[in-house]
């Protein structure tokens, strides 16, 4: 019995499942966001109407969820691509670190933009 190819005992199942669930949520959220912001001028794109809309906590929850799910899906996707390649451990750990820092930074930026209203 060769154990050469046996790796981590942690299951990849949750990551695989959440990637699919967040993908489905993003399709709905992205289409909704695009219709609202790019195809329906009547919904109001200027600061005043955006400010008014964002007073509704449901819109805030929608955009906070959108930011978190979008970042998780996108960065986990990049991490999945990275793991498709055989590389030295320090390189993959560095890439993982960069992805985590990018995720935290963009999430902070997103939260600041939503919660400022």
């Amino acid at each position: 019995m060769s154990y050469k190819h046996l790796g981590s005992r942690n299951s990849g199942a949750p990551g695989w499942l959440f990637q699919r669930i967040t993908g489905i949520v993003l399709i709905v959220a992205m289409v909704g966001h695009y219709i609202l912001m790019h195809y329906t001028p009547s919904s109001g794109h200027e600061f005043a109407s955006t400010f008014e809309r964002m007073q509704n906590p449901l819109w805030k929850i929608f955009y906070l969820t959108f930011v978190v799910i979008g970042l998780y899906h996108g960065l986990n996707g990049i991490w999945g691509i990275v793991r498709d390649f055989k590389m030295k451990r320090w390189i993959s750990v560095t890439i993982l670190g960069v992805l985590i820092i990018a995720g935290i930074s963009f999430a902070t930026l997103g939260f600041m933009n939503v919660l400022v209203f």
Partner: protein
Amino acid sequence: MQVKFSIFRYDASKDEKPYRQEFSLEVEPTDRILDCLDRIKWDYDGSLTYRRSCSHGICGSDAININGKNMLACQVLIQDIKKKLIRIDPIPGMPVIKDLVVDMTDFFEKYEVVKPYLIAKNPPAKERLQSQAERALIDEAVNCILCGACTSSCPSMWGNPNYLGPAALLKAYRFAFDSRDEAPAEHLEAIDTNDGVWRCHTIFNCVEACPKEINLTWHISQLKKKMVEREF
């Protein structure tokens, strides 16, 4: 009809790098590629090296790359190729030993990892019976002849040589979904790793390459679903 063969040649013991050699043959449309290779070896160049055994699509030893696609030389006819120039290469992603013969040691090591055998801890009093529905689950998976055409056609394997590959994963399915197997978890745990089932991105090259027409990607997706069921 006249057909030209451009064949990959390389002898690791004496050649610095590979080269191509061309042969023109008068062939019948119903000749198999293996028949043509045999004629080249027997009548033109005895040093041409390739694997063959049963010559009838069962032993899985003559998987080669024909005009860019992995196939069994004994299963493909000249008329299937529809070209006057036929390029023949060893299957990709594996080290070449000589000409069309590749080193499949790594392929079989990965195969071994998934415990490719029925795990039965309690000896049965009589034969192990299966319902038709239980057997139907593994109807396709049992047809694998381990030719390696699928694994060698997989871009995920080219990018990460540690990836177990579709053939090993199919074998894991074959036993994990066999109602007679008493430890499906052992097969599943062996593939639930960084280089296991999660590296499959449903590219479908393996499905296209499989000479036994097994839908490997479907079987791998069933393994992923099984993993999720196990976790939640």
